[in-house]
């Protein structure tokens, strides 16, 4: 059921193997060029080589946490790079404040978000037609 490729590169930085696999497979099915990274460090590394159009980013991760990755990605690619925070961490005040400061594009809670909804958000941000 692979859809037409959008040639859009999506970097999925998620430390949970099961979740990462689900997201990457879903995005691939929906025609994206999705690549997964299992921690923040690897995510930064992959971002250099893959130059993503959009990053799906978890917050609680080993080695380098999501917020640091967010800041580094912004430093590297500028604040125009769309980043969707997809996490199960609460919308804690200091995080929300950081997100405001660093302009994450969206903040989604995994357990409340369908994969279809994630895809919908990505398409909306990248202005892709359904």
């Amino acid at each position, binding site marked *: *059921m692979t859809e037409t490729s959008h040639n859009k590169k999506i970097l999925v930085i998620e430390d*949970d193997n*099961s*979740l990462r696999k*689900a*997201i990457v*497979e*879903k995005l691939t*099915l929906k025609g994206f060029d999705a690549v997964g990274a299992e921690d923040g460090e690897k995510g930064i590394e992959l971002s250099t080589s893959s130059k993503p159009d959009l990053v799906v980013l978890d917050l*609680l991760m080993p080695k380098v946490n999501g917020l640091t990755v967010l800041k580094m990605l912004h430093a590297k690619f500028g604040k125009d790079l769309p980043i969707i925070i997809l996490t*199960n*961490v*609460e*919308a*804690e*005040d200091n995080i929300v404040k950081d997100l405001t400061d660093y302009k994450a594009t969206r903040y989604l*809670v*995994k*357990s*409340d978000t*369908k*994969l*279809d909804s994630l895809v919908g958000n990505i398409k909306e941000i990248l202005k892709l037609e359904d």
Partner: protein
Amino acid sequence: MNDLTKHIIEVATGEVKVAKAPTHLQCLALGSCVAVILYDKESKVGGIAHVMVPSSVQINNHHYENQNQTKNAITDLVEQLEQLGADRASLRARLVGGALVISDVDDIGKENIAAVHSTLQKLNIKIDDEHVGGHAGRSVVFDLSQGQLQINGTVIPPQEKGGDPIEIKTSEEKILTGSSELEEKIAERTRELTERTEALDNVRKATLNLLEDLEEERGKLIEEKAKSEAMLASLGDGFAAADENGKLTYFNKTAADILGYDANQGLPDTWQKEYGIFDPVTLKPYPADQMPLSLAVQGKTANKIQLLIKNPKMPKGKFITVTATPILMNGKSVGGVAIFRDMTKEMQIDKAKTEFVSLASHQLRTPLSAIKWYSEMLLNEEAGSVSSKQKEYLKEIHYGNERMISLVNSLLNVSRIEMGAFAVQTKKVNIVTVCKELLAELKEKINDKSLLVKEDFGEVPDLELDPNYIRIIFQNLIVNAIKYTPPGGNIDISIFKQEDSVLIRIKDTGYGIPEESKDKIFTKLYRADNITKNDTDGTGLGLYITKSIVEQAANGKIWFESEENKGSTFFVSIPLTGMIKREGVKGLI
């Protein structure tokens, strides 16, 4: 006290009773004499002074210059009467008699009465006009050689003590002269005086007793004060008191320990600055006039106010909660007392609990997310086609997982509600819009049960609200209405602006709430019996969370009317002032 002053007379009767005893009358016989009867009607005290005012040059071959004696005799009597309780200002006098001792002097009494009158005036004693000189001209002769008394020419035979009184009538009034009667009167007055003296003595004793009681009470008060101080000193909570000017007057040891200041070194006048009192959320100095003890001094009560104490002696800072109460006398504040507790450890424990709950919920949600996503892909047949039976089972898995996610979210919310404050992030929100959005999301569920939803929305202003919380309120109430209304039933939702609030009303034709469950319906984990039969997947947390949000975040009210098997109507009133923004703690989900 001389004999004369013992002769207390009944002044009210106007009768003059003269003792027959020659000893008393000797003074009369010594010269022309006037009996001055002094009395105080108020205190019923009186006495007789027999005053000699010889106008004759010579009496018994002696010359007398007795004007001074007159004055002295009356003055003595006045003093004695004052001692017996007479009020000098109200003393009145009657003058009686006029003795004629030397036969060749005419009407000495008249002159004498005038002289005594003058003396009395000098002493500021009022004289009853009718008696001034009323008896003037009446001569009283006492012949010492014969022991014979003559009044106006009538010889009065001497009477033995106890005999009948002698009564003499003049044209003007009746004058009773009877020695025994006078003695009786005197005895009676003596008794009265004795009684009076005893009464005074009793008063004196009573006063002494009162003083003793007062002293005893004072001792008790000192003891109570010592006890109170000992109790306050040993309190595990900090205790401070201030006077009506906000000046600290007492400070126990725990307070000193908490604030880092030793009360023995004196209480600072500027304690509001010196103790370093801050708002624990904004970390800004707490306004001096809003501090709990300051509020108490102003006559207000402050309940469990959280403060941060940070000063040079307490550099790490301490979190305290303070409750303060005014000291009221006749409704006016004359000072205040404050009790405070070091909450630093509790705050640390709360923080650890919050972190644990966050982490636990995160860890629980990760596998739930995996189930959610993979079952979603399977149901979407993104991994190949599935049979209808397989699809049915997959739906059960997916639905069960959704319930688990909802339960985790609810438990997390409950733990935050119970830990006290939860964050409130406000912005302009239109309640009707939120309701409409939610109804659109729930359309499928509504259609599944063929429910008829009637919307009746008035003009409602945008309010400062946390949109997430308004959504939770609608979510719980409308989902309940959907769940607990049999297929084909009605749900009426109305939202209207009231005078100072927005009223939300959600009415269904569902199972209703049994009478015995009505008082427990907002209790955590409670589910009514009739509901558990019809629906097994509720958590019993929805209404508890809804009520907590309505009351704690919106300062609003929630209530219901319900009849079993007919339906329920839930009402929520949200004040037009909206919700108050709260920072520093986590929000509900």
